[in-house]
């Protein structure tokens, strides 16, 4: 029949054209020299007086669900690259970043790392943002034998897949709340909260953290009066927050993944005139200015605690320098710097040290080096990888918002820890 024939003809023609375009798009990068045709790298070999640049590829969530974190990561990677180049680059070669966006999509991230490695021929790669993307990406990168150093895929789901190439420079997520739980449990009986409420988002990042903390606190006699999981996509936090408030728990442990979640709870607590003595949230308060803007200012943030491996005031020379550079390049103030920036920067530092130590860009040598038990230094503190790729040396700190600043308060007695404000001042007072 005529209609079908014409249809088939059109499809065949368009298919041929599309295939041709796709093939050209894919293969043109592979036919040129290292540096490729992607947007950020620019030309391949530079002038004869400079050495050829080393390209490091990464896929970041510059749009979509993880956009805020992805963009912070990008800034961290770029800051690192600029500083590394000032210090002479990697083995004397300038560093160039090859950053492409994955729009927070796992399908895209799979394609992206293949592009970075086999089309753009980047010598090294850095990890993306979030466990959700790290897992599929790590498998792709493993096939090519590349080292996969990342700073934001720390949930248990990322490790133990039998992959030897994955290295997370940041604190393993599951231990996040332990310093807090230990501190609360160690308070004198008259001050210690009698009851606690645990509420967590249904997420591989938050859920593993709660049971550990709960065990420690229950052992100290702190009764659990509320313990529920809520869906990650809930549009109305009010009933959950109200239920927590109704439980009149003296301590609240919130497993949150982002600013909107914590913000919703804070607003609901204020509306319910509920003032727990202590309030800790696993993520959200670490986002600096974005957190303050959402909860309505420093006074509402006062006393809220959160775990992290880093904060802008961290007393580490390299960290301070990074914070200053960030502020002069992007504006804002030191307290507003997002922790993601430090995570990204640390990835760069770890890789740079591995390259320097092995005097090569050979990924298998880098992998062996990183697994050798060596301790590296980053703006987040020391880094030492165990056999799974987790950072066993990562210090778990707890921070607290005090008068608009993020202050390290736990572990008590650790270098840089200040006194914690306890009990948390009442909202609206």
């Amino acid at each position, binding site marked *: *029949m005529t*209609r*079908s*024939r*014409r*249809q*088939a*003809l*059109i*499809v*065949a023609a*368009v*298919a041929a054209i*599309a*295939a041709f375009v*796709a*093939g050209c*798009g*894919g*293969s043109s990068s*592979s036919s040129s020299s290292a540096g490729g045709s*992607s*947007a*950020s790298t620019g030309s391949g070999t530079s002038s004869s007086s400079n050495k050829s640049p080393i390209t490091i590829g990464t896929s970041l969530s510059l*749009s979509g669900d993880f956009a805020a974190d992805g*963009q912070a990561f*990008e800034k961290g990677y770029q800051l690192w690259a600029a500083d590394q180049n000032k210090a002479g680059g990697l083995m004397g070669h300038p560093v160039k970043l090859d*950053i*492409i*966006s*994955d*729009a927070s*999509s*796992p*399908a*895209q991230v*799979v*394609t*992206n790392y*293949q*592009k970075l*490695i*086999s*089309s753009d021929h980047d010598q090294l790669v850095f990890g993306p943002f979030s466990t*959700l993307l790290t*897992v*599929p990406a790590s*498998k792709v990168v493993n*096939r*090519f034998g590349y080292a996969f150093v990342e700073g934001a895929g720390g*949930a*248990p*789901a990322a490790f133990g*897949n039998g992959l030897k190439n994955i290295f997370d420079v940041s604190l393993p997520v599951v231990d996040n709340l332990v310093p807090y739980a230990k501190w609360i449990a160690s308070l004198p009986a008259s001050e210690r909260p009698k009851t606690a409420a645990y509420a967590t988002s*249904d997420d*591989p990042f938050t*859920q593993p953290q709660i049971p550990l903390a709960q065990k420690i606190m229950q052992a100290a006699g702190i009764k659990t009066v509320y313990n529920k999981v809520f*869906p*990650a*996509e809930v549009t109305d936090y009010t009933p959950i927050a109200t239920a927590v408030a109704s439980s009149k728990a003296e301590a609240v442990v919130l497993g949150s993944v982002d600013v909107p979640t914590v913000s919703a709870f804070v607003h609901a607590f204020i509306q319910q005139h509920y003032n727990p003595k202590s309030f800790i949230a696993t993520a959200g308060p670490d986002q600096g200015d974005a957190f303050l803007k959402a909860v309505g200012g420093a006074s509402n943030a006062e006393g809220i605690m959160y775990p992290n491996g880093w904060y802008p005031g961290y007393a580490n020379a390299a960290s301070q320098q990074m914070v200053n550079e960030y502020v002069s390049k992007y504006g804002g103030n030191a307290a507003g710097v997002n922790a993601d920036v430090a995570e990204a920067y640390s990835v760069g530092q770890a890789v740079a040290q591995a390259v320097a130590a092995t005097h090569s860009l050979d990924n298998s040598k880098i992998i062996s080096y990183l697994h050798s038990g060596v301790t590296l230094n980053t703006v987040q503190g020391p880094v030492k990888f165990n056999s799974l790729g987790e950072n066993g040396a990562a210090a778990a700190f707890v921070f607290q918002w005090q008068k608009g600043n993020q202050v390290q308060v736990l572990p008590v007695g650790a270098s840089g820890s200040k006194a914690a404000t306890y009990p948390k001042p009442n909202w609206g007072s």
Partner: protein
Amino acid sequence: MTARLTVRALLVAIAIVILGVFPLVFSNPTTTSIAVFTVIYMVAASSWNMFSGYSGYIALGHAVFFGVGAYALTLLANHLGFAAGWGIFALVPVAGIIAGLIAIPTGLIALRARRHTFVVITIAFMFIFQLAASNFAFTGGSSGLQPPTPLWSATSYNDHFYYVAAVILVATVALSWLVRRSRFGLQLFAIRDDEERARGLGVRVGRVKLSAFVLSAIPIGMVGGVYAYFLGQIFPQFAFDPLFDLSIALMAFIGGLGTVWGPLLGALVLESLQQYFTVQSGASQVYLIIYGGLFLAVILLLPRGVIPSVEDLIRRWRTRGATQDRSRGEGDGGRRADVVKAAGAR
């Protein structure tokens, strides 16, 4: 008549050859990676079109079958102790059948509703499955599941998945074409054009709709399994993703709803363009504006989809100056279904 048939068969053969040699010619893993996803979406769009395009009932919940296929394959592979490698692909048809079985109760409930309500019910089912997958321990909860990872080399890894998906694609298109030409297909078109009239003329409306619904679930379940195996990880919000539903509907529409080749074209263009765009675009959110603008332009200028509109143009060019032919409303598959024939030939 024979000549036309031969030409058409030849064109189909060429398409299959292109499909077959594509990864050999364009062997770069980036390209084959995009190709795997593109073929998966071509199957999904084509399969969706087999139900929604032919019957006119717009379903926005077929992600249920995609996710069920993904989880089914992974659960079976893990619990039955399959070793990573070619063997797991044997589970793909099983995943498809499981998806088809799920389609029976969901279809029975959803298809009792009018068209508008039907859309919402399919969406509701999608969320129910997503939430259930997030909350049950055996589906891994929010941490999801991981199938075994095969040890193929990086350069040819994607090709395995590509070929499995390509075989599914050929089967799906063949099925779609067969349905379209069959009495069953005519009944579907009759339902699309005027359901009450079809029913009055004796078409077993409920049974026909349900059969098409179940049939359309099977290929989608199969590529859901392939997807899970390819990615090496399934999380509930990506296995059951509302954007998946919108995407395959968009692809079918743009290509030409109700045609056999339209959804393929739509998926080919949209999926490869989308991955390509994202890879090149970086942080600029401007690409969203361009993307949306392109959509709008295509939809408004070619409202029946690319294929029917281009067809129209060709036909009008050919018959320019000739007397106005009584339009048979072709191309968009909206050819006036011969309702009497459908009802009579039972």
